[in-house]
């Protein structure tokens, strides 16, 4: 199955209990399938950046094999609220 923004979004919501997900298909800007995601999940609480990204990488392990480039921003619900206010 081809990797789509919807597929990524669904996986993040179901496996990482993400409360907010934004998936941008950045493929037009790059040479092949690429995505940029913002994930807000309470599971990121208390975890350093690297651990958060690894959590996402594990969740999307199969998809990452297919796509060319991947950018991610991981926030806890608290960080997300703060960012929205800025």
């Amino acid at each position, binding site marked *: 199955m081809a990797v789509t923004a919807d597929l990524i979004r669904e996986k993040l919501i179901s496996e990482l209990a993400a409360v907010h997900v934004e998936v941008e298909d950045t493929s037009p800007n*790059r040479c092949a399938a690429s995505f940029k995601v913002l994930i807000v999940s309470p599971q990121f609480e208390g975890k350093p*950046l*690297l651990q958060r*990204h*690894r959590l996402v*990488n594990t969740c999307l*392990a199969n998809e*990452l*094999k297919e796509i060319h*480039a*991947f*950018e*991610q*921003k991981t926030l806890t619900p608290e960080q997300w609220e703060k960012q929205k206010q800025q």
Partner: protein
Amino acid sequence: MNSVFGAAARSVRALTALSRLTQPGGGAACSRLLCSAEGQKSLEEMVKKDKVVVFMKGTPAQPMCGFSNAVVQILRMHGVDNYAAYNVLDDQDLRQGVKTFSNWPTIPQVFFNGEFVGGCDILLQMHQSGDLVEELEKLGIRSALLDAEKEQ
């Protein structure tokens, strides 16, 4: 006498093996090299040899990818020019080997003191949050941004 010849033969063989490594598409023997236990060990040595190690697409002088370029730019901003940069486009075995080594799916990959830090996203966030200055300090590298602030 025989032992001298034996040693010479061994070093010639070793040198040949090494040159095969650096040739593009160097044959079946090479493709197992970096993913094998020995290969992973040499990666371990590579990341420990220098304080800052980057696996990227292209070179610092000529990055071949936007994300790799971002890493180069960030390091440059902090005045870090003395780092080891390995071009994974030159070596498909390195490209796969480093992903296995750090258990990370993408390039670029940044290592500080032999420890995996992350990719472009993480480095950028560390730069924006001020964490990068701190981490560089732990390595004994003084970020150029600290001096830039002083001048203002």
